[in-house]
């Protein structure tokens, strides 16, 4: 049975279904229940934006509020994973990774390799990413390139409710540490989602729109901007293929290369800062492996190399717009040779 639900509800459902299926799944984080030890309602919050609301009533103590101690509880999730549980730890805002990154990149990510294949660390760290929520510089970043850089981590960033549910279920079942990035401006977005459980394999990009003139690759919120751009371009008979990566590590190189070999043009859209991000990564990979197919230089559309500004008037300029993406596509069609860094503003 399929019905329209939001990405927030889809994530809640995935957690519920996996907790029912597997008693080793536990969920922890700051205020994921809410009100622990206080005198008011049980399950007061269900996470700061209510993503885990209602799970406490179904699963009780397997949902654990934590002190505000990211290093301690993220590390505890990692340690519990190394000892046979499948913890899902909510980091609330991925920007808080700076507080606890050692437990992720020096501990969780390395155990399997560093211990000679004799350890596994099936932990999921999930949290919010992205700008556009008026949350300012320390609650708005798209830090996906940092995570993608680290061997041993898997990195997921869904663009819709259907993918969020299937990818979170896959993340919980995966035996490696997974960084699950939820764009906060997509929580309310609804689409058809089956009520039953299903897993979406990692490393399989989704072609959301077919086209023969140009390939647009993106993930997360900017997938929707890319689709808007493609709709606008179609009025001028420019047909863009839009690829949603869904997982950044592993990444589906084959789908990208096959598409570029057909279209001959590439635009990569990444909400992250412009240096050493998914856009530079993909542009370089295509340049190395499909150079002969390219009819124009790859274009990159990214956030600027600045912190995320607070003022709505500035923040709206920060995230790559459909107009900026469409302009980048047009540059691939009539290359002027002029230098462009393709940032949103």
């Amino acid at each position: 049975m399929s019905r329209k639900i939001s990405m927030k509800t889809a994530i809640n459902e995935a957690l519920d279904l996996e907790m029912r299926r597997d008693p080793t799944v536990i969920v922890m984080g700051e205020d994921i229940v809410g009100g622990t030890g206080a005198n008011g309602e049980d399950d007061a919050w269900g996470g700061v934006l209510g993503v885990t609301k209602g799970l406490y009533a179904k699963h009780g103590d397997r949902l654990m509020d934590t002190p505000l101690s990211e290093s301690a509880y993220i590390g505890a999730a990692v340690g519990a994973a190394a000892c046979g549980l499948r913890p899902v730890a909510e980091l609330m805002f991925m920007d808080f990774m700076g507080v606890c990154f050692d437990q992720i990149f020096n501990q969780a990510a390395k155990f399997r390799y560093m211990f000679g294949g004799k350890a596994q660390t099936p932990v999921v760290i999930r949290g919010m990413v992205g700008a556009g929520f008026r949350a300012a510089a320390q609650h708005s970043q798209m830090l996906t390139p940092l995570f993608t850089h680290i061997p041993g981590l898997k990195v997921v960033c869904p663009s819709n409710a259907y993918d969020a549910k299937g990818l979170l279920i896959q993340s919980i079942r995966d035996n490696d540490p997974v960084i699950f990035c939820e764009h906060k401006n997509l929580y309310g977005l609804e689409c058809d989602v089956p009520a039953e459980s299903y897993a979406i394999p990692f490393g399989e990009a989704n072609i959301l729109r077919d086209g023969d003139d140009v390939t647009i690759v993106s993930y997360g919120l900017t997938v929707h901007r890319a689709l808007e751009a493609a709709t606008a371009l179609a009025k001028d008979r420019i047909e863009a293929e839009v690829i949603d990566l869904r997982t950044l590590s592993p990444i589906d190189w084959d789908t990208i290369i096959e598409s570029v070999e057909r279209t001959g043009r590439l635009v990569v859209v990444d909400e992250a800062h412009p240096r050493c991000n998914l856009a530079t990564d993909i542009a370089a990979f295509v340049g190395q492996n499909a150079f002969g197919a390219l009819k124009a230089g790859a274009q990159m559309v990214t956030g600027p190399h600045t912190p995320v500004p607070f003022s709505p008037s500035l923040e709206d300029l920060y995230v790559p717009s459909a107009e900026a993406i469409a302009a980048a596509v047009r540059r691939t069609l009539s290359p002027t040779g002029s230098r462009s860094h393709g940032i949103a503003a």
Partner: protein
Amino acid sequence: MSENPFPLSKDDLLKAYRTMRTIRDFEERLHIDFAKGDIPGFVHLYAGEEACATGIMMHLNDNDRIASTHRGHGHCIAKGVDVHAMMAEIYGRSTGACRGKGGSMHIADLSKGMMGANGILGAGAPLICGAALAAKVRGDRGVGITFVGDGASNQGTFLESLNLAAVWNLPVVFVVENNGYAESTAMEWAVSCDSYVDRATGFGMPGVTVDGTDLFAVHEAAGEIIRRARDGGGPALLECNMVRFYGHFEGDAQTYRAKGEVEALRASRDCLVMLAERVVEAGVVARDELHRIDREVADLIEDAVRAAKAAPLPAPSELLTDVYVSY
């Protein structure tokens, strides 16, 4: 033989002596072979501190987890990790505990409950909270022990973990191995409180300070707080005051130590000598019995070194295994 005045059986005394002797000889041999240039990388030796690891680990089984430090060889041996596999790992061989991919600072054997030495100071404390949480969720009465030095006791991870363990009432024992030096910096200068017991009290848990060179003192104090944790009584902190016979790392000239300091410590506070003297003087163990253990351990270490040197290096293909590789 006289009546045994100790709280440990003669068998346990001999086992403890064998463990301590194995750690000592393992480390002394590494000291020599490192100086010869036989061993790659960083090596941090536990010599002088053997009574601490041994006295604590005597209370644990394979189901109990420990998280160790960069100075982890002693913890590994006391927790039952195979000495041959350890030596081979330190030599970077394919027969090593981590198949040559971890090295001295990352020896682990999860089947023995040894969750890894750790190159990041204080990083084991959150991990052991997770191990203890897993034991609590399973209800298997397992406990978790994390070791930190006096230096790493200042890490936020350690202090956060004290709070988390207290709040979640986890079966964890935090062991501060106080050897007086954070690398080269004096504990008296770098640690703001006078006693670790004060820190424990601040986090709402009991704290105990013992002479970490006295096997019996460590064994008794550890036994009590481990039993308490196992029975659901919650976390505790154990400070073991001990001595480091070598530098922070091999190659450390130790110019920060007073002249004659190490020689004086070896003469007056050698935990292995003190244990041997006590049990022999009490007439519980004959000196010959200890000498037999000494010879057996010497043979074991010799064989471990021989086997490690003869073992194959990891195959080149090993570079890309045991991790998801996307390029």
